Structure formats: structure tokens, C-alpha cells
């Protein structure tokens, strides 16, 4: 055993801190590998359907709130920066900096979740949720234009209760059949929504877990339990946090930017 092991941080079954840090870093990376495969599964499923129904998925994506998503992206990336700065402070033994950066990271993560909350609320308001809500809404919209010609449908004033997306789909589908290039299949829009809610939902849960871990770190810092030798504890959490950030960087284009350019909806 080397002389450099008389640290309260060193766990009994490790030879020295070098080994302990190496184990912790490798361990969390292996966990991240499983996370990547976890999301990889649903990304794979998404890919299959995206290739099958490109048009419907793009249109469906256009009805999502791209503004909030963009703001959230900035939030997450910034939180990654502060998280990395937290490690830096930890390594330098700057407790104040560590404390501030961790708190900032947690705050940005919470801000992300709040915005996400608003977004979900809006989607529910607009009945843009797979299941009966969605089907009632689109059925009502179709009802209104059922007897109209495309020309009339263009000018048709929808009942104020109709949502922008159902109006758009119903109007668009007048006089078209399933296999027309322009046809928007409500069923497939719903399929996209399943992916949207499952993917963002799982990602949101990961964010919440991350916030929890960071707050725990904040507490540990306050209690002075994170000396420089223990920086790897911060690093472990940060690696997880960065991965959740990186996954969002892919959710963003797949879910929100797919329909960018249709514009107008948000």
C-alpha cells in the first residue's frame, strides 16, 4: 500500500485513491453505456417508423412547441458548463465555487423541467395527446369538413373549439386519400405523439434523478464532505448529467426540428 492512502475518502477495499477513482469513473461510464442502449432501443423503433412515415412524422412534429424546446436546449447546455465548472472547483478545493456551480446546475435543470411542464400543459390544452382526447378532436374537425370540397375547405371557418392542428389536418385531408403524397394520417400523427411523450417523459425522469443527485452533492459540499480527493463523486454525477444533456441534443432534432420549416404552428 502506498503512502498516499491515509485519506478518509479511501474506501477499505481499494488499494489507493488512484484505483478508487479509476473504478468510479469506469463504473459510471459503463452505466452510461447501458443508458445509451436503453435510449438506443426506442431511438431504433423511432427510426423504423420515421423511415416508414416520414411525412406524417414531420407534420406531427410541426405542432410541437419549438420555442420552448430551443430555450430548454440552451438551459441544458449551460447546466453542463456549470457542472463541469463544479468539478473544476472541486479539484481546486474551492468549496464556495463548487457550491455555487452545483446550485446553478440544479437551478438550470429545474428551469428545464418547469418549461417542460408548461409545454406538456399546453399540449394537453390543445388535446395533442394520443388516445381518446386526440381521436375526439380530429373526428370533430373531420366532421366539419366532411361534406366540403377542397376549395370550400380552404375557406371554411372552423368552430372556435377546434385546435390549430386538427383544423390543419382536416382541411389538408379533404379530397385526399391515404396514399396521396399530401395526406396526413391522424393515426401516424398519434404514433409520433407516443414517441414524443415516451421519449421526453423518460428523459424528464432522468433530469429529475440528476437534479436529486446534484442537490445531494450540494448538501455534501455544505457538510464539507467533498475535499479534492473526493472530486470523483462530483465527476460521477456530472458524467450522468452530461449524458442526459447529450441525449436531449438528439431528441431536439428528432422530435422538434423534424417539422421545422412547416412553420406557422408555433
Amino acid at each position, binding site marked *: 500500500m502506498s503512502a498516499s492512502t491515509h485519506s478518509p475518502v479511501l474506501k477499505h477495499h481499494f488499494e*489507493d*485513491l488512484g*484505483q478508487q477513482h479509476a473504478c468510479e*469513473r469506469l463504473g459510471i461510464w459503463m452505466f452510461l453505456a447501458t443508458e*445509451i442502449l436503453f435510449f438506443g432501443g426506442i431511438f431504433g423503433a423511432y427510426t423504423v417508423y420515421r423511415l416508414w412515415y416520414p411525412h406524417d412524422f414531420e407534420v406531427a412534429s410541426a405542432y410541437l412547441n419549438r420555442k420552448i424546446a430551443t430555450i430548454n436546449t440552451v438551459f441544458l*447546455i449551460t447546466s453542463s458548463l456549470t457542472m463541469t465548472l463544479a468539478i473544476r472547483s472541486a479539484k481546486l478545493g474551492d468549496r464556495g465555487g463548487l457550491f455555487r456551480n452545483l446550485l446553478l446546475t440544479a437551478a438550470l435543470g429545474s428551469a428545464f423541467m418547469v418549461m417542460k411542464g408548461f409545454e406538456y400543459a399546453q399540449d394537453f390544452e390543445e388535446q395533442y395527446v394520443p388516445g381518446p382526447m386526440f381521436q375526439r378532436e380530429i373526428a370533430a374537425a373531420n366532421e366539419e369538413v366532411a361534406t366540403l370540397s377542397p376549395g370550400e375547405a380552404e375557406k371554411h371557418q372552423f368552430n372556435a373549439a377546434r385546435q390549430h392542428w386538427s383544423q390543419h389536418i382536416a382541411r389538408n385531408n379533404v379530397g385526399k386519400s391515404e396514399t396521396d403524397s399530401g395526406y396526413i394520417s391522424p393515426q401516424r400523427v398519434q404514433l409520433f405523439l407516443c414517441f414524443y411523450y415516451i421519449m421526453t417523459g423518460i428523459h424528464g425522469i432522468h433530469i429529475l434523478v440528476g437534479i436529486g443527485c446534484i442537490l445531494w452533492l450540494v448538501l455534501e459540499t455544505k457538510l464539507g464532505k467533498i475535499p479534492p480527493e473526493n472530486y470523483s463523486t462530483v465527476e460521477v454525477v456530472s458524467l450522468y448529467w452530461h449524458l442526459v*444533456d447529450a441525449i436531449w441534443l438528439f431528441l431536439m*432534432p428528432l422530435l422538434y426540428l423534424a417539422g421545422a420549416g412547416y412553420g406557422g404552428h408555433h
Partner: protein
Amino acid sequence: MSDPTSTPTSTTSSTPATDDPHGIRKDVDSAGQLAVVFLVIVGLALVNVFASIAIGPTKFTLPMQLGIATVQAGIVAYYFMHLRQGDKVVVLTALSSLFWMGILFVLFLSDYMTRHLVVG
């Protein structure tokens, strides 16, 4: 996989320096560098959004979007996640996770991309 020639870690653990007993401070990030990295990632994110809106849905849009996202994730992994400091096994782990995800995608599509081909 694993490298059978690599020696056990306990013999290769960092040798203590005088002022920095556990070699912790020898690879601290420079705040400036982090700031630059941060700006690059945010920039790319905004480029991705506005470029997508500008181009609209063409068959190039998705590759462009995913390309940018991949670059972003790469930067995050390399600088923020300290892959540049990680040892061989850590890098191997990161790469193999991607490799296995590749297996999943390629073999999924080997079915879905060929389903509608006429059987020769």
C-alpha cells in the same frame, strides 16, 4: 473488448507528486477553454434550429440535423465528460456502447429496408 496484455492497475496507479498527492490537480480544465466549448455547442444548437427552419423538410434536413447533434454530443463527451483524460478502458466503453447501438440499428434496418424487395 479487453486487452490481455494490459497490466493490473494496482501496479500502474498514479505516482504521488509532492504538492498534489493524488495527481488530482494535474488535469484541471481551463475555464477559458470550457467557455469557448460552451459557446460552440450553443452556437451549433441555434444553427441547427434556424437552419432547419430555413431549409424546411428536404431529404438533406435529417442528416444535417443529426450530423450537427453528433458533433455537439462529441464535443460534450470529449471536453465536458473528460473523454480526453479517460483511460483506455473508459474510451473503449464509450465506443463499444455506440458500436452496439450501431448493431441494433443496422440489423433492424436489414429487415425493414429489404421487406418490400421482390424475392429473387
